Each structure stands twice: as C-alpha cells, then as structure tokens.
C-alpha cells in the first residue's frame, strides 16, 4: 500500500498524464497576460495608422477586459457536457489564436442549430 513499489495509476500503466480539469489561478493569470499581450500588438498596429483587411478582422476580436471568463479560459467542444472544455486542452493553446477558437465555436454552433449567444 505504501513504499516505493506501491500500486498506483502511474506505476501500473505506462504513460499516464493527468491534465487537471480546470486551470489554476496562476495559469488563468498567465492566460490573461497572453491575451493582453495580443491586445497590445493589435493596438500597436492600429496606432500605426495602417489600414488592411487583417487589421479590420483583428479589431473585431474582443479585448481581454471585454471577454467573459467563459471565453478566456474555456473553448467550445461538441463532446463535453455543457459544450465547453478548458482552453488548456487545446494543443499549443499558449501560441495559437483565440480567433480560431471563436470561429470554430461559431461554426459548430451554426451546425448544431443552437445559439445561446448572439453570433
């Protein structure tokens, strides 16, 4: 029961990763930091006075302080109950655009014919 050779999930099976169900306070803080950094980049490009389609699209994205916690820390999934999963379950979530999450979420919503939020 105790000791170095005790039976546990880790010792009995080979590779076992346990991903927490939700983000910790620290990971959420880091997530907000990353979102703010992206907001800063968009703001800098906007301040440069350049006009382009990419900027128009980027300005439609919600800023960090405008996003509800639901959008900051979770993403849509068709498989989970409640249709949400933690953003940390998305591969490369610290380096890929939130825009894709929102877009895929909206697309799936349309496919499901179910829309709790205005599109």
């Amino acid at each position, binding site marked *: 029961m105790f000791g170095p050779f005790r039976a546990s999930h880790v010792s009995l099976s080979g590779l076992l990763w346990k991903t927490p169900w939700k983000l910790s306070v620290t990971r959420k803080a880091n997530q907000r930091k990353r979102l703010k950094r992206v907001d800063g980049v968009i703001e800098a*490009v*906007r301040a440069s006075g350049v006009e382009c389609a990419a900027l128009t699209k980027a300005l439609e994205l919600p800023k960090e302080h405008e996003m509800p916690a639901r959008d900051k820390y979770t993403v849509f999934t068709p498989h989970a109950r409640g249709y949400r999963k933690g953003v940390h379950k998305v591969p490369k979530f610290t380096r*890929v*655009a939130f825009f894709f999450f929102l877009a895929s979420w909206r697309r799936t919503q349309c496919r499901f014919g179910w829309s709790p939020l205005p599109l």
Partner: protein
Amino acid sequence: MAGSSRLLASAIRPLSTSTSTHAVQPNTSTGQYYKITLLRSAIALGSKKKGTLVSLGIHRRMQTVYHPHAPEFAGKILAVKELVKVENVPKEAVRTKTEQRQARKPSRGFVILGGLTRSETTGVHAF
C-alpha cells in the same frame, strides 16, 4: 449576460476604433517603423507561421527587426500576433543588426584619449 457583453463589445469596437484612428493619424510622424521582437517560437505551429516569420526577417527568439509602416507588414505582424511584441518607433530609433550588437556589448572600461607619441596625452599615462 455574457452574450449581451459580447454584443456590446462588438458594437462599441468599430466606434472607438474610428475615432481613435482619426486621432492617431497626424501622429504617425513620431513612429514610422514597427519594432518587432519575437517572444515565442513558431516551432510546430505550421509552415505558414514559420514562413511569415522568415519573411519578416526573424529567425530566432528575442530577435528584433524593424519594418516601415505598410499594410503588408501589418498583415504579417497580425498573422503572428501571439508570438511577437510590437512597438511603433521613429526612424531615428531603427537599428541595424550590427548596431544592435554594438548596443548589447558592455563598455570596455577605459577610453583611449590618444596615441603615445602625442605630447598632450603623456600626462594622462603618468597616473
């Protein structure tokens, strides 16, 4: 509740953007270049993002490059907006790779005032 805030946000954003763009337009003379620093690597993010960084002239993390304000560079920056840090800087602040290297170097700790043969510097060498 969340839905209404999102709707509000999307409704407010174009308004605020248009007003501030007009305010910013005359100030573009102060910053004419993007100072782009790569903070996060594009490893395993796909060839498009990697290619964007290559076309921006960035090939390693923490490297800084300067590009003029132009739609093509704005688009490239926004394509990799999660990886970079961007500042608007005037033309005088633009540094080449060599200049950036020189700026990073520590000071040598001494200053050469002149050659040994010159009579006015002999007093300096005495102490």
